[in-house]
């Protein structure tokens, strides 16, 4: 089976499936994988430095200025402008949301014919269209009218997002998406655009894997972006509509956790097309951490920032220390917000923790890093990915975590869960585990076994082996052979003999 793996190069770390795709392709040698990578600008330069391109990998740069190219002629420009206007209307006019897919595919079709889409989107004509629609009555500009600079910035950002539409990936030959049996999108967002177009053009089904939802990352990431409200609203509206359309068109969604599945359901995915596949990690084989330290130690890891809530940990530890004076707290991790480490140290002084609370540098991933602690504690207010929890569970240490995000399903019954923002509950849980060695050992072992079972690579590979076969079995064998534009091919539309016999002309030729 030929499978096209579509990924985006570098997003925030939660989004980045580092090595995940490689493990999948290594686990399924019976299939032929082709990688299609969308790269941000910085990585593209690194790629260019790395000399010869890898075989079987096709890349497209998503950031930076558009790479030259001629704009469309006067007549084609009018077609482009009409399609772009449909798309923008869907983005800014709440009544016309339904036109998003039509506008997107119209643009894709035009871009397939002459590849002038990036040049058009960077041109003044596109900016005029954007401005006209954006300032039209009925546009959603509740918290601020767009200014000229907003039009320019939003136009550029849209151009970058829509660049995959003009990629030369949609041929039916080898190395083209039309020739693939299946697309596998890892990450969502713009990476799903080629899959949407390939499904529309060639009827190639696609499966979408998301580790950390793209849309949610955008909502959180754009809050720090230095754009004015109208730009944020337009771009987030684009990502939202794209996500909804992707979820609607995907043959199957495989979120990395049930927590993400709830979001996907909310975004319009249907229950029966979602299958949770936990993200496998190669670390399951590493040995457990050795003997516990002699002095009872609570080990807190994570970035020192308000979202990680080390303050909650310090307050809880003050309570622990009142009961058990020889206990120690290790706070390990880099500083996420400048000056926050000093703030936490000040809090520790105020709580009279003395030298029992120790701040250390960056956290590692190896099992030895957990050996310093008797109990691993996570006090974060939010947890979108399972990474740190799984690492702690694999070390075989008992675990206490706040009940947020994915924690409940990852830890399950193998650790203690406390409500977020409740130092008393956390303190009681810490005391309970520090005082009971037998329970610690039992929970630690159970956690290690649970993590090894759920987060190994083999279940992922097995799940996708089945998913690929299942999807392809529901799709016709040669979708490209009898495709009509816009209509999805149906399986078993022809009996097997039809394909064995070949086309009518071949049969006639052979008969003579």
């Amino acid at each position: 089976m030929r499978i096209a793996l579509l990924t985006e190069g570098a997003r925030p770390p939660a989004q980045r499936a580092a090595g995940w795709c490689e493990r999948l392709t290594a686990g399924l040698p019976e299939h032929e994988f082709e990688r299609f990578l969308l790269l941000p600008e910085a990585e593209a330069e690194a790629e260019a430095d790395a000399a010869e391109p890898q075989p079987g990998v096709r890349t497209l740069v998503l950031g930076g200025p558009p790479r030259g190219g001629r704009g469309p002629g006067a007549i084609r420009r009018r077609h482009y402008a009409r399609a772009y206007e449909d798309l923008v209307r869907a983005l800014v006019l709440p009544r016309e949301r339904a036109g998003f897919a039509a506008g997107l595919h119209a643009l894709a079709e035009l871009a397939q014919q002459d590849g002038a889409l990036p040049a058009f989107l960077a041109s003044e004509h596109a900016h005029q269209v954007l401005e006209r629609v954006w300032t039209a009555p009925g546009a959603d500009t509740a918290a601020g009218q767009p200014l000229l600079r907003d039009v320019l910035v939003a136009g550029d950002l849209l151009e970058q997002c829509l660049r995959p539409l003009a990629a030369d990936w949609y041929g039916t030959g080898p190395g083209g998406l039309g020739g693939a049996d299946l697309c596998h999108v890892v990450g969502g967002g713009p990476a799903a655009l080629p899959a949407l177009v390939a499904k529309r053009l060639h009827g190639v089904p696609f499966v979408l894997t998301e580790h950390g939802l793209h849309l949610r990352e955008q909502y959180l990431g754009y809050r720090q972006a230095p754009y004015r409200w109208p730009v944020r609203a337009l771009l987030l509206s684009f990502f939202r509509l794209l996500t909804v359309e992707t979820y609607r068109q995907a043959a199957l969604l495989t979120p990395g956790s049930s927590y993400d599945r709830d979001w996907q359901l909310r975004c319009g995915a249907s229950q029966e097309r979602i299958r949770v596949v936990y993200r496998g990690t190669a670390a399951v084989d590493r040995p457990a951490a050795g003997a516990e330290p002699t002095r009872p130690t609570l080990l807190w890891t994570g970035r020192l920032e308000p979202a990680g809530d080390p303050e909650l940990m310090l307050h809880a530890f003050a309570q622990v220390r009142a009961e058990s004076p020889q206990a120690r707290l290790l706070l390990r991790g880099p500083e996420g917000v400048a000056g926050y480490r000093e703030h936490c140290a000040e809090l520790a002084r105020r709580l009279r923790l003395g030298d029992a609370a120790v701040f250390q540098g960056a956290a590692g991933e190896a099992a030895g890093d957990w050996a310093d602690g008797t109990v691993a504690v996570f006090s974060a207010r939010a947890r979108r990915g399972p990474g740190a929890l799984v690492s702690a569970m694999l070390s075989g240490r008992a675990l206490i975590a706040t009940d947020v995000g994915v924690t409940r399903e990852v830890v399950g019954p193998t650790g203690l869960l406390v409500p977020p923002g409740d130092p008393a509950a956390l303190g009681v849980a810490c005391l309970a585990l520090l005082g009971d060695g037998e329970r610690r050992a039992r929970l630690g072992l159970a956690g290690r076994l649970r993590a090894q079972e759920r987060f190994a690579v083999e279940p992922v590979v097995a799940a996708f082996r089945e998913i690929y076969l299942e999807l392809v079995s529901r799709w016709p064998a040669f979708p490209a052979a009898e495709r009509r534009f816009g209509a999805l091919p149906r399986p078993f539309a022809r009996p097997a003999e039809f394909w064995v016999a070949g086309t009518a002309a071949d049969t006639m030729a052979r008969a003579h």
Partner: protein
Amino acid sequence: MGGGGADPVRELLAEHRELCERATHPWEIAAVLEEAGLGSAAARRYRHADVFSLAEELYARVPRKPADDEPPPGTPTVAGPLAPQRASGWRHRCWARGALLGALLLPLVTVLGAAAGRPGPAAGSAGSSGPSQVGTAAALVLAAWAACGAADRAARWVRHAGQVQLRTVGTLAQFRARMRPVLPVALGLHLAVLALTSFTALAVLTAIAPRPGPAAGGLLQAVIHRAGPTQWVAQASLGLLIAVAAALRRCGRQSVALAGLLTADGLGAGLSAVRSCGLLPAGWAAAPGALTTLATGTAAVVLLPYAWVALGRPQAHR
């Protein structure tokens, strides 16, 4: 249960008011609430099934407010993804310097060419002596060179005006309307400075080497008559060309500016070569400044409309 009173959401609303005012969609509020540790379990305290419906209530109850969320100046709005590359290579800079120098020397070259090519008749028809013409041309070259700084100042002012308009203006049409007088004003300023430097240079020249014969009128008249009308026109067109090229260079059209200057250089050199072969009519071509006017004027006539259109576009000022 938490919240207390008839409206448990009110406290939450007060706590997250800024978020709700700036949100673009209920899902954004949901994402941030979850990030703040408010999961579905906590949403039940507010009588909602999950955090999404809680976010929807918050989104519906707080009106969007036009926030003064001005981004820090100069960050992504001005230096957008399409910002032209400002740092050009040294090779490009050398070319630009050379082309500018060539354009500046045009008056001198054409006069020298005339003096060398056909000394007798040319000088006679122009009605003035060779060395005096060369001196005048040299003074004009010096004046144009001194005014180059003003051209760059004017160009920088054009760019600055464009960026200020870009930050504040509402629509494309408004931007164009406001940018319309900017280029003419900049060119006018440069021409004024050029007139001043030319006048000064010629005055100095007149003081050092006064023209032989009776001095008619005062110093003012003597200085103005020192250069013929064609030479003044040539100086003006050279000034226009240099100012337009500077403005284009400052606004990211370096290659067009360079091409304009090189065109003027090439035309000037070519015309004076043609003249020295005797292919041009003796009357007007031998007049000092005529060939310079022709060369720089042609380049300026081509560049001016282009610059007018290009600098009226917002892309040029990012």
